[in-house]
């Protein structure tokens, strides 16, 4: 198991190096002249040239990449060209905000999604099952930004319960901090519930018809015990894998949701840095998201192996 994890981590590192090359290559194509950004649009050409030389922008691209990557590995992520701040704390702060949002949404998605899936499976073919199926179909079909609009129209405009956007630091008090979080969280939950609940439903239906569940029933165990202790444990396996993948997907979903709700997270930072050609911030933010995404995939695989004795023991025996 340790060797397997080590190999996967090496692979992730290699993928991240490749992603960094991709990001660097694309961002060097950006039509943004860093020297002009620093000196202002009316700088005399000879000053611009001197600064470009000083910044190493006249060197070959691969040299620029190695210099950038070296600094990156030493923890020097550069300076945001727009906000004149080091990128590292900027990105970390945004990551913290995003993790609060994505983490809350994720916990709700896991609990509600699995519960809905189990309920639908137990009422298989009945009206409740169809209702859940249609609702989750909607969840997949509706783009996040439309859910966001619906949430704003219903909760902020019509009911007036929630602010339409914004962010308050935790120091402003719990309710002030939590209130603006509710609408973006709801949006993410609506948009991502479907995968988990549909998968839980189909695997639960399959498991409920397996011989060992029949045996458990034949033993005279109460239905509650059969469902929760015998069936659900096995049915959860695929659901947990898809949940870990969903965490990666959430990191993509926050781009739109954070932008709409003006929530100062990583997704908004990416959009913001693209709109303002803030290349150091963009590079760091995208790499960070790729790292989280890759780790979520690894966790998905590890959880699957860990929870499935067949795979676990097979590998240890080999």
């Amino acid at each position, binding site marked *: 198991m340790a060797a397997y994890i080590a190999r996967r981590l090496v692979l992730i590192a290699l*993928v*991240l190096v*490749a*992603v960094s090359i*991709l*990001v660097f290559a*694309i*961002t060097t*194509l*950006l*039509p943004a002249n860093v020297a002009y950004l620093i000196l202002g649009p009316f700088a005399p050409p000879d000053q611009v040239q001197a600064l470009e030389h000083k910044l190493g922008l006249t060197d070959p691209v691969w040299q620029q990449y190695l210099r950038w990557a070296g600094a990156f590995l030493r923890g020097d992520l550069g300076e945001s060209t727009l906000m004149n701040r080091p990128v590292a704390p900027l990105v970390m702060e945004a990551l913290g905000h995003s993790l609060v949002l994505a983490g809350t949404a994720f916990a709700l998605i896991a609990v509600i999604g699995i519960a809905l899936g189990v309920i639908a499976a137990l009422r298989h073919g009945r009206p409740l099952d169809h209702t859940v199926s249609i609702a989750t*179909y*909607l969840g*997949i*079909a*509706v*783009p*996040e*930004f*439309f859910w966001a*609009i*619906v949430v*704003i*129209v219903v909760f*902020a*405009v019509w009911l007036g319960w929630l602010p*339409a956007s914004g962010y308050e630091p935790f120091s402003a008090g719990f309710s002030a901090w939590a209130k603006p979080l509710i609408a973006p969280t709801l949006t993410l939950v609506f948009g991502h519930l479907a995968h988990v609940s549909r998968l839980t439903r*189909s695997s639960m*239906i*399959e498991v409920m*018809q397996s011989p060992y569940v029949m045996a458990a029933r034949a033993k005279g165990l109460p239905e509650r015990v059969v469902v929760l202790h015998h069936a659900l444990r096995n049915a959860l396996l695929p659901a947990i894998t898809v949940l870990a993948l969903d965490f*990666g*997907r959430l*990191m*993509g*979903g926050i*781009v*739109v949701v954070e*932008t*709409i709700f003006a929530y100062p997270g990583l997704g908004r930072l*990416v*959009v913001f840095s*693209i*709109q303002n050609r803030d290349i150091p911030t*963009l590079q760091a933010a*995208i790499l960070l*998201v*790729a790292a989280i*995404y*890759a780790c979520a995939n690894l966790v998905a695989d590890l959880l699957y192996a860990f929870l499935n004795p067949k795979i676990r023991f097979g590998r240890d025996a080999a």
Partner: protein
Amino acid sequence: MPPEAAARAPLSPQLQAGLIIVGVIVLLGILAPWIAPHPWDTISMRTRFLPPNATYWLGTDEYGRDVLSRLLIGTRLSLAMGLGATAISLAIGVPIGLAAGYFRGWVDEALMRAADVLMAVPPIMLGLLFLAVTPPALWKTALAVGLVYIPQIARLARSVTLSLANEEFIQAARARAEGASYILFREILPNAWPPLIVEASLRVSYAILLGSALSFLGLGAQPPSSDWGLMIAEARSFLDRAPWIALAPGFAMCLLVIGINLLGDGARERLDPRLKSRIAA
């Protein structure tokens, strides 16, 4: 169920619903310039923010333009986005997948690791990254969305090729000393189409969603275009006064995506009876 019987079997309700929804939307999109009740881009300050009424069925927007007419014209843009982007993914992804699955070895390894790299970044961020380098335009967005979804198509094409590569008819073609490109495109590809087409039809809805999200973020269609994502983005500032401007394109997009998903899922079940019996069980 043998294939002949499947062809004669009645269409499942799911497939029927999908066909009807998508068919009507495509028809409306094609006929849009002729059936749109008002010009979609004429600014009229007297008719700003009218709620839905008998003249303007879905109301008017902040420039007094008819929302229904804009919606109808926008249908074409969404369909073009979905189909165009998916065509690009197929055109590049399928040959890559065929080559990876057929040649195996280092070709496979190199292509699939490259796919891993693209898949290591969430689709929307990859799309943003591609589009960051160029002034926004809708066709560029379609291109970017197409590029983003190449790895998924390539992976599927590869796995289908792997399963076909050892079939007797491929061995026979090899024994006849046919060239690799003949075997790939004349022997394997025609047999790999069914799963690829099903996947592609579902990809159309992914492409529409991603494309409209990028337009929504300002990296796609530009004003005064009536792209649905852009319409929603522009209507955002008026949610308190005129929610219908944002809700109309939103509902339209939901309907289109649901239709495509029903069509794709229905087609998948029809082509793969094993799956159907598993779901029905």
